């Protein structure tokens, strides 16, 4: 079995509002990330994907607070160590993060090379500017990025180029894990593919060892991820291999998601898409039973009352009271979801 780079156990993070309400955005999430794997996290806006990413990185800034659970990165539980140690020893070296609008992270008054100097001087003591320039140029060359970008200002670069530059900078210290939070959602499809190629290239060349990729674009996730986790209202509702989750979803929510995929392929035109009715629950209230209850087309009375735990069936897990066979049967006959 491959080495476990990242281990998250029963992680719980809350937002505290000024009215002293607690909003549990990440609730009891557990997963492992193994060497060489790309884990995809899917879910709609507001389901806690980005909060999970920030919690795993230890970015606990108010109003986000740590509640309970373990995040193990290379044997260190980062929730237990002081922030300065985390910043100096873990962030950037062991784990790196690309936020959604990474292009805005570039300082408009600095050349790209100055930013790289800042990053490397902070983490490697005694490194000279000349050495930094050499490392940066080599890295840009291996990743097929033009070298003259280093001497430019962010305003001179296109959106896709900025995004690629930020990815190159954030992985310059060879972190083991890269967390990419919707790195392509602001780009058009052409630049998107170039960015995805760059990310895959980083793994292939061994600059990073594993990646967590967050997005709501399922076809994109299928193209990049080995495993997929589906999140809903702060919980993981299903996880498994990409192929299985996309083509053979178990949970009613994932089933709804997979039925809303639109791709330019034969048979898509005229296909009825499923619309999942309603909106996700408000997480500030204590929720009992299944969180998908209100929107689920297959809901029963017991869903609301009983506590729903993860069920494990050959390498896959899902959070529903019903058995796999029962769900499959429902998808196939009779109770067809409300179509568009």
């Amino acid at each position, binding site marked *: 079995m491959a080495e476990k780079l990242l281990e998250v156990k029963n992680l719980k993070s809350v937002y505290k509002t000024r009215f002293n309400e607690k909003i549990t955005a990440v609730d009891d999430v557990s997963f492992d990330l193994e060497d060489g794997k790309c884990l995809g996290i899917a879910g*709609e*806006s*507001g389901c806690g994907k980005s909060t999970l990413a920030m919690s795993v990185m230890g970015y606990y800034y108010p109003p986000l607070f740590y509640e309970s659970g373990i995040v193990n990165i290379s044997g260190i539980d980062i929730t237990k160590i002081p922030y300065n140690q985390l910043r100096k020893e873990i962030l950037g070296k062991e784990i790196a993060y690309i936020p959604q609008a990474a292009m805005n992270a570039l300082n408009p008054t600095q050349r790209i090379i100055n930013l790289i100097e800042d990053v490397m001087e902070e983490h490697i003591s005694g490194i000279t500017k000349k050495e930094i320039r050499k490392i940066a140029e080599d890295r840009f060359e291996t990743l097929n990025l033009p070298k003259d970008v280093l001497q430019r200002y962010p305003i001179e670069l296109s*959106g896709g180029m900025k995004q690629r530059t930020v990815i190159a900078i954030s992985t310059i210290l060879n972190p083991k894990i890269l967390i990419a939070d919707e790195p392509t959602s602001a*780009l*058009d*499809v*052409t*630049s*998107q*593919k170039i960015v*995805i*190629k760059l990310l*895959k290239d980083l793994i292939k060349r061994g600059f990073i060892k594993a990646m967590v990729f967050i997005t*709501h*674009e*399922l*076809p*994109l996730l*299928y*193209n*990049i991820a080995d495993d997929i986790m589906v999140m809903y209202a702060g919980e993981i509702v299903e996880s498994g291999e990409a192929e299985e989750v*996309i*083509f053979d979803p178990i949970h009613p929510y994932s089933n*709804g*998601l997979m039925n*809303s*995929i*639109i*791709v*330019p*392929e*034969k048979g*898509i*035109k005229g*296909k009825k*898409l*499923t*619309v*999942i*009715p309603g*909106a996700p629950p408000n997480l500030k209230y204590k929720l009992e039973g299944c969180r998908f209850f209100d929107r689920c087309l297959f809901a029963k009375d017991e869903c609301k009352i009983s506590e729903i735990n993860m069920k494990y069936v050959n390498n896959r897990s899902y959070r529903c009271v019903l058995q796999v066979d029962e769900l499959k049967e429902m998808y196939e006959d009779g109770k067809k979801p409300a179509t*568009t």
Partner: protein
Amino acid sequence: MARNQLLLSGKDVTKIFSNKKKKTIAVDHVNFEFESGEIISIVGESGSGKTTLAKMILGLLNPSSGEIIFRGRPIELKTREKRIEYWRNVQPIFQDPFSSFNIFKKVDNVLLDCIKLLNITLKKDEKYKKIEEACNFVNLRFGEIYNKYPFELSGGQMQRLMIARVLLIRPRLVIADEPTSMIDACSRASILDALMKLRDEIGTTVVFITHDIGLAYYVSDKIFVMKEGRFVEEGFPDDVILNPTEEYTKHLISDVPKIESRWAL
């Protein structure tokens, strides 16, 4: 509204942005004919001139040369009355739902204002009934939007509300400029569904601008592929997507992630 009649056409429409140093040709001698009761997609990558063309059709930008003809007459927006009349017939749906609403106004008031535009007198409960109908049309429950400010709604809800607004005004032409690009994939289906319902039940013509050729294929009756300010390929979706002739179209299709086969990366 009558279908398959010529609604909007453009003759050599050109837009040049220039300053002292350089000239940028955003839209380059474009010709098009849009018929009523259709969804027409304009597809292209960022910077290909899609939005500039949309703004010219909306009358927010003047073409540098060429003319746009709406229902047999070149569009003319010199006076306030003419503008109001034109925008009664042509309505936009913008990319960013969060900035299309006035943040100080409750959203149901926005819809009430739309009814005012129609120049009909209705009692208050009749107005609300009309609004409720419009909300149901786009799959929104009236309770979801009643007495709410824009920040209390999700992007998907706001974008659907925008379509409900359009429905109340009943324009002949809707310009939807990337209406789904800021919405997550799960709510996307409901937006597309609402646009198709507009076409099928009201007979509105929709110009759907997107960079995602998959969406264009799903929703439209005709596709125009735009590159560097020109239409390089146009036709029915089945022809354009399944048997593209232009290199550029093939390239666009190959860049969209698919589920039949994975990318070789």
